[in-house]
């Protein structure tokens, strides 16, 4: 099993091609499911290996780094893999019926191809040890994402996709510029090699510019306010499977890129001491939290509401990173993990609502607490987790974030976080109120909700509770990752 690092990328890529070759809808779904199962298995196995060794390194083509490309999996990568493959597995179970319903028959095979390529792209980003390779896999996932978003039924999906394509390409090109600048100054692309060679040239304009371009590029991809314009439409109009998967994973991988470059590559010394990047992150994060939450309160389309909420949650993560402390980093990673669970649950539940009513407007959800009890119960769990009610995963990360803020004596920000939780309460509460306490609309759809969708949804929902009551796994990996990042022996 020494080849797991590469198989976890190559398997979904080849599966994507195989699906096209076989050109059968059911088979396509089955292959997608099996592939994501394999990837999940691979990421869990690698997580186990990481209990013994610090880092799994795999040199491709038999050329040792920095000449060949190296895959490098540390605890941070493993955490991302866990999120990605876990979400992918649940999404593929869920996709069977959702895709049948929302995607025209002739496009279904290619839909799964694109989905697998998004997965492979995101996995590739998370494990690569080569800066330029990040760009390549970023584009693999992005191109397929654009196509997937455009498959939404509303024509606005097309425009949303185009907007994302424009901003995404600018973002990727910015990252490319940043990588180029670093390459000019060091002559290498390997992240390990870069991190060793950078200190010698750290005090140059070129490196500072590289830092800025990479941060902004990744910031666009992460929908960091004020670079978020693409996200609300993209999430609102894309098919349910796509919005679920993207909401659970895509922006987090962009944040991962940011963390990887800023902490592993440039190093804390450079990022937070030579340039005051921590302060900038704190400010941007705070604006993101408030802006995203306030926007979310005013939305009448629940998908869009959750999209703005995602922008706010990215704010939480950035703020936590900006604290530049061990506690802060841990809180950030923990929230990356927990937020994936939360948004996965919420978007899946909405997908089921969409399955029945072909809409995610708040108004059509009147009274569905009675007619779709299981779906809405899961939505409620996700909502409580988003608010940060104890016993849910959201509480755990919020707890660590506030603790980290208090440790840094930033108690006004701690208060602000909790005020933002109240905003969250308001927008989640609006949905729950409409669903449970309004009379059901007439002309109720009689469509049965498929079991597969409910199963996937409930696994997501219950994981919110499991990781809320027992954070051993999420905490363990996050702590390990942070220790590796800041170079503390664990």
């Amino acid at each position, binding site marked *: 099993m020494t080849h797991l690092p590469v198989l976890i990328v190559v398997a979904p890529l080849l599966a994507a091609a195989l699906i096209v070759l076989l*050109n059968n809808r059911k088979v396509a779904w089955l292959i997608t499911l099996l592939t994501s199962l394999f990837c999940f298995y691979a990421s869990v196995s690698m997580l186990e290996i990481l209990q013994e060794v610090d880092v799994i390194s795999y040199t491709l083509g038999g*050329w040792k780094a920095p000449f060949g490309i190296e895959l490098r999996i540390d605890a941070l990568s493993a955490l991302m893999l866990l999120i990605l493959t876990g979400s992918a597995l649940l999404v593929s179970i869920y996709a069977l019926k959702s895709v049948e319903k929302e995607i025209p028959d002739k496009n279904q095979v290619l839909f799964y191809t*694109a989905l697998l390529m998004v997965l492979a792209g995101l996995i590739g980003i998370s494990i690569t040890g080569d800066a330029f390779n990040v760009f390549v896999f970023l584009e693999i996932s992005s191109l397929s994402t654009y196509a997937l978003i455009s498959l939404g039924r509303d024509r606005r999906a097309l425009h949303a996709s185009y907007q994302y394509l424009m901003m995404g390409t600018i973002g990727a090109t910015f990252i490319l510029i940043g990588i180029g600048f670093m390459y000019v100054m060091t002559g290498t692309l390997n992240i390990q090699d870069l991190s060793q060679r950078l200190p010698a040239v750290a005090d140059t304009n070129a490196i500072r*510019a590289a830092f800025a371009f990479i941060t902004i590029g990744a910031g666009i991809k992460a929908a960091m306010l004020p670079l978020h314009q693409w996200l609300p439409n993209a999430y609102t109009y894309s098919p349910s499977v796509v919005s679920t998967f993207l909401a659970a994973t895509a922006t987090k991988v962009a944040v991962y890129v940011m963390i990887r470059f800023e902490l592993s590559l440039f190093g804390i010394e450079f990022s937070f001491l030579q340039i005051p990047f921590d302060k900038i992150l704190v400010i941007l994060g705070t604006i993101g939290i408030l802006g995203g939450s306030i926007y979310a309160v005013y939305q009448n389309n629940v998908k869009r509401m959750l999209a703005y909420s995602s922008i706010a949650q990215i704010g939480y993560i950035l703020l936590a990173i900006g604290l530049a402390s061990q506690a802060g980093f841990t809180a950030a990673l923990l929230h990356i993990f927990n937020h994936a669970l939360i948004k996965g649950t919420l978007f899946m539940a909405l997908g089921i609502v969409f399955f029945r009513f072909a809409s995610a407007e708040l108004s059509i959800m009147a009274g569905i607490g009675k007619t779709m009890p299981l779906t809405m119960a899961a939505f409620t769990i996700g909502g409580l987790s988003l608010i940060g009610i104890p016993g849910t995963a959201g509480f755990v990360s919020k707890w660590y974030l506030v603790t980290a803020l208090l440790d840094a004596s930033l108690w006004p920000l701690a208060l602000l976080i909790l005020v933002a939780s109240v905003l969250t309460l308001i927008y989640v509460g609006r949905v729950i109120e409409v669903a449970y306490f309004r009379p059901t609309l007439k002309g109720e759809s009689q469509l049965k909700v498929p079991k597969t969708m409910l199963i996937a949804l409930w696994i997501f929902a219950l994981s919110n509770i499991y990781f809320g009551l027992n954070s051993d796994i999420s905490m363990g990996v996050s702590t390990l990752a942070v220790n590796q990042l800041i170079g503390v022996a664990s």
Partner: protein
Amino acid sequence: MIENLELLIDVCLLTFLLLIVFAAIKTTNLFVATMLFGIFSFVTALLFLDLDAVDVAFTEAAVGAGFTTVLMLSALRLTGAFENVKHRHSVLGLFIVVLTGAALIYGVADFPNMGDANAPVHLHIAPEYIQLTQEKIDIPNVVTAVLASFRGYDTFGETVVIFSAGAAVLLLLGMGHAEPKHEPEQNLVLWVVVKPFIALILIFGLYVQFHGDFGAGGGFQAGVIFASGFILYSLVFGESYARQVVPASILPRFAALGVIIYGLTGLVSLLSDKTFLDYNALSSNPVSGQHLGILLVEAGVGLAVFSTVLLIFYSFSGVNHNE
């Protein structure tokens, strides 16, 4: 004196590029803008040539100047060639652009002078590539060696990017279908001239495919050239005929096959417990293993690129307006 001459050509070409882009911004005729972009790509290719990047120049000419332009024209056919005459003067936009520019100018201030042989980029890794290529791979074109062997994983990703672009276009536009009634005018001169020309293009494509180890070229360029032969055929003789020669429905599978060929070539090394894409495992002699590996992956790339490019062309040219 040569260095100044190179620099002079360089600056001239760059200035030319500036003028082209300026014209493109100003024009309201999208057809003109598209043609200007074609010229832009072509001049860029010349620039690359001047900067010793022959492979890149070749690709830019084939892909940028050739394929992209054709694609844009196909799209214009469907959308109309004029934009609303109004220029937005975005203050915010200008601000962002100036800020970006300032950051870039600030950043390049520390760059080593252009062409400086002692710049860090030329001291680390690059010399080893040139040396290792001669020792371990033994092909003259270092770019091909780096592309297919040292950084074969990137190139695998690149093949997948092309494939995913094909899938994306197919998802958006479908395969389309040719309009059987519509046939281009029967122009005997054109027919007579083009027929042998297409044959030449295809032969040239094969040459580029297999000569990539020695000179400029490789799977990408070959794939595009090969596809452009068919595109030319389709333009001259009518698309329905072209679709009879290469049916659209087979193309996605060809493209997938290209990716699979590349991937499997990489996976074979796993059997002998070498890492992914380690071509040494392909033969008892490492050097011939490298040769074989490069050949195979280039074939995969060529197939994928050819099929995808042709597929994208079909998708654009065969779109039915009324759907």
